[in-house]
Structure formats: C-alpha cells, structure tokens
C-alpha cells in the first residue's frame, strides 16, 4: 500500500465492516468531514449520526446504541475525546461494560495549526486509567485497517488514536495485527527503540539508520498498543540489548514511556537503562508539524542522541 490518508483508510474500513456487519454504526460531533466518514453516511444514512457540536451527548448516544447491541465508532479530535467527554466515555461506556469505540484524531503535534488548545499530549495518559480498555495508535495504513477490524470485534471499549494525514505504508499488505501486540521492525544488539504512532515510528526508523552509520545497532519496535502492552516482545528486546528509548508524540508522563518504566521497575529488567522521548510536561503550541517536532524534541535526531548517550553509558549499568 502506498502513502494514503489515514482518515480515508479509517472511513473505508468502517464502510467495509458495515457492509459485513449491520451492528456497525458511526456517531460524530460535527467532525464527520474531518474524520472522513461522510461516505459512510451517504452509504448508510440510517447508521451514521451527527449529534452536532456535543461530545458528551455523542458518547452517551453511543453507549445507548451499544446497550442495544450496536457497535458504535464515535470520533472527534483527541483533545475532546479525552478531556471533554471522558466521564461519558468512562461511565456510560466503560463502566457500563458497553463496547463503545472512541476515536481521538489529530494526536499531539499533528494538530499543528489548530494549536495548543487542540493538541492532545495527555489523551493516552487519561485513557490508560480506564480498566480493561484497548488503546492503539497505528503507525500506517495497513496496521490501521487491521486494527479497526480488531477493535470492532473486541466486545470491549477501545481508544483509537488516529493520525488523519497521509503516511507511507510500513507493513506489506496482508500483514496481521492483534490488539495488545507490537511489531519488531528491525533487529539490533546495542539498544531498542520502542516507538508509537505514524509520526514517531518513522522517526525511530530514521534514527536507527543514522545510528547504524555510526556503528550502533538499534532494534526498533512499533509498540502499536499502549494497553495492553506487549510485554513479551518488549521484555525480550530489552533483555537482549539492556537499553531502551521510548518515542511518543505525547507527554512522557502517563504514556508509553511511563508504561515501560512501570514494566521495568517491577520486573527482571530492573537495571536496564531507559530514556523517554516525549513532551516534557508542557502544553502544545501552534506551528507546522515539522516545527513542532523540533520544538518538543520529537525528531529522529532527538531519538538518536538519546540512544547514543545510553549506549555510551552502558558500561556503567549493572548487569541484568
């Protein structure tokens, strides 16, 4: 699959699913055009609902639909999905054990010109506190397509962190994905970079290429799932390398890096070295995505620098 708008992949996948399964419905809050689900509404007008600019009601309606056996996909910008309507998602959805699928678009710096008000650096941290939830951030069109299907079939609440813009495919067509499973993209003996999402996974791959030219062999894992974390794959590669850099388009607190730190602190992996690349307790700002990438230290060079430093200091770590 060539470069493709992720939102188009999301919408097309939902449309295909809807043809196979009459339970699939879409609920939106005046962002159907942004999410790309207008073709869904054209094809299934009786199964797509625009509640207007009312995110709380969107999730309440979604929960009611789920109570009657529907599988609702409710989408809005990630800032509103997490911050504005969290109690509705939590109580009417998750606590009521109703399989509402919440889609938070425009993660982190991809919010770009919408600026700090619309820049969710905290949505994963908020969502990780929901018991039993699946949280995924696909890195490319192939993984997105597969994971929308997995979320639809899970029978549980899920949070899909959806990058809307066009990105290149990382995976070959037909690659299979599971909720709770990451993917090893590259082997390496010196360090492992664990990255999340359509911006940070390519940055991590580029960082690994730079490091290779300097003689450092970095493995790269596409985390994909923040909850549950793929502890098997992650532990295996931390065990092999003894050093790990996490890379996420999100606060360091509460996100992938935090989840890794928790895993390491309570496991046999204690003593491995960890550096988290992410936002350092700051609010978002307005700017281009590339400018913001540098502003918040999320570039390939930031990842490579962290890796170099960890590898150089590896002799100081205690053996694990």
């Amino acid at each position, binding site marked *: 699959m060539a470069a493709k708008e992720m939102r188009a992949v999301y919408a097309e996948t939902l449309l295909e699913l809807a043809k196979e399964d009459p339970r699939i*419905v879409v609920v939106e809050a005046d962002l159907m055009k942004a999410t790309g689900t207008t073709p869904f509404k054209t094809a299934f*007008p*009786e*199964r797509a*609902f625009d*509640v*207007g600019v*009312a995110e*709380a*009601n969107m*999730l*309440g*309606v*979604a*929960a*009611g*639909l*789920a*109570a*009657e*056996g*529907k599988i*609702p996909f409710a989408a809005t910008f990630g800032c509103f999905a997490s911050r504005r309507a969290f*109690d*509705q998602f939590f*109580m*009417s959805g998750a*606590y*009521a*054990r109703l399989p509402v699928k919440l889609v938070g678009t425009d993660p982190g710096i991809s919010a770009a010109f919408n600026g700090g008000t619309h820049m969710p650096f905290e949505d994963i941290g908020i969502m990780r506190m929901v018991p039993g939830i699946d949280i995924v951030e696909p890195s490319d069109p192939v993984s997105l397509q597969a994971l929308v299907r997995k979320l639809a079939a899970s029978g549980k609440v899920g949070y899909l962190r959806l990058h809307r813009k066009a990105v290149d495919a990382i995976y070959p067509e037909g690659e299979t994905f599971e909720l709770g499973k990451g993917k090893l993209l590259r082997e390496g003996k010196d360090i492992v970079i664990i990255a999340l999402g359509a911006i940070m996974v390519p940055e991590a791959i580029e960082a690994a290429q730079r490091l290779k030219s300097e003689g450092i062999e970095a493995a790269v894992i596409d985390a994909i799932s923040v909850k549950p974390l793929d502890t098997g794959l992650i532990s295996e590669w931390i065990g092999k390398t003894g050093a790990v850099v996490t890379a996420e388009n999100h606060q360091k607190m509460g996100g992938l890096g935090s989840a890794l730190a928790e895993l390491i602190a309570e496991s046999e992996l204690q003593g491995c070295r960890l550096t988290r690349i992410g936002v350092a307790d700051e609010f978002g700002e307005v700017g281009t995505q590339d400018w913001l990438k540098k502003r918040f230290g999320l570039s390939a060079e930031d990842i490579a620098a962290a890796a170099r430093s960890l590898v150089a200091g590896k002799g100081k770590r205690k053996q694990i």
Partner: protein
Amino acid sequence: MNSMELSRLEEAAKEIRKKTIDMIGFLGVGHIGGALSIADLLAVLYFREMKVDPAQPRWPERDRLVLSKGHAGPALYSALAMKGFFPEEWLHTLNKGGTNLPSHCDRNKTPGIDMTTGSLGQGISAACGIALANRMDGRDVFTYAIIGDGESNEGQVWEAAMFTAHNRLDRLIAFTDCNKMQIDGVTSEIMNLESFEAKWAAFGWEVERIDGHDLEAIASVIENARARVRPRAGAKERNSASASAEHSTERPPTRPTMIILDTIKGKGAEFCEGQVGSHNMNFDYETAKKAIAALDR
C-alpha cells in the same frame, strides 16, 4: 381509569414507598428523598404502562427505562422486586459489599435495569441511543427516561434535548421529577430553570406538566404521548433519518414528549417529606418502621 384500577396503582405506589423506606432504613443511610418523589411514576410505569417480562429482563420487545437520576435506584429496585425481576430478599443487601443493588443503577448487576447511571445528565443521552437503535431495528417499543430537576443543570441534558427533537425520536418519553430541591438547597435559589415547559418546548418537545403524585394524570399523559406516535406495526421504518422524514409523503414521526412532574421530595415519609436534607440522609430502622406504619394507616 376505574376505581379498582386506581386503587391497584395506589397500592403499588404505597408498596414501592414502603420497600424503599425499609431498604434504606435497614442500611441506615441513602437517597430517600428523590427516590420517594418518583414512586407514583414508577407505579404507573411498571404496573400499567410498560411492557416488560421479569422472566426475560433483556427481552428485545420490552419497553426500556433509563433512570438518569440514578441515585433514585432504591425506588426502582422496589418496583422491580415487586414485579418479580429478583427476590425481595435482595432489598436488604442495598449497598453492601458484593450486592446486586448498588446505590446507583447498574445494568450489569440488577435484572431489569436497562442502563448504568449515576453521573448526572448521562442517562438521557443513553436513552436517545437506545431509542435510536430500536428505531433502526424497527421495534415497536418505547424508551422511558427519568431525569431530575437538579440534574437538568447539566449541559448534557440539553445536548440530548436537541438531539432527540432533531431526530424526532418520538418513542422516547421522558419525565422530569420536579421536586424543587437539589443537594445544596431549593432549585429556585441554587439554579433556577423555570420555566421547564418553555425550555423543553423551545427545544422542540411536546410538553405536559402535571401533579407527579396524581396516578390518573400520569397514566393519562403517558397514554396520550403514546397515542401521538404512529404505530410501527413490526415494519422497519423507511425514512428514519430526520431529513428524509421531513420530505417524506408519509406522516413524519411526531415529537418526543417531556412530562414535567411536580413532586414533593421525600413524599410519603413523615420524617423527611419536603426536606432539602432528604437527598441523602441518615435515619435508623426504627424511624423507617414508624414511617411505614404511618403509610399503612
């Protein structure tokens, strides 16, 4: 309504009150005021109007009820126990560890509860989704929702109000338990929302306002609301999207109905009737027993 039917409903309402007072008194604390204010409504719904089957709590053809003011759960538990959804012995387990009867309604714990509620304003939105799903599925069922006047401070109530009217969810019949009190005081002083009729009408609803303790009046407005709705007759509705319904040559669906019930918080329990403090109050089992005996006099 003939006098036999009226006295049957009066007995049901009295029994809901007695069980509610008993269960909360047995525990020693609970949301007694807002539970007692809806006892008459629950009696009419469960003992006259609603199509339910206690043997099949999730029967697809049942009418649904969302108690959006979820803290009034004990009154609903009384009605459900009387209908036979679960044994009456459960009532004394209210709020005890491991119970199936938590203070706020839980669809996964209690047979007969259609939606989990408790965080105010959310149940009315869920009722919209439930009504919508049943329209999609072409079921000839009604969704009833009960909200509080204090609860109506929540913005989400009005988000749901516009959604319901816009989508002409005419099989949603909602009630506002207007008991004029909220936790911090009387609603007119804390956050005055009157006129409720004008507000709901402005949002595009059919509105009725009646004495919420008048069983005949409650039954009559519910039956009128249902009569306004065209029968679905088992057939899938051709034009369920509002826009196409507007332009359909068939009669479009009618508007949703909001029934404002003027009630008294704590109605029927001498120790708390009309008291602001009855929202969530402590009282011992002796007090409960006296109040129950007074209801029997």
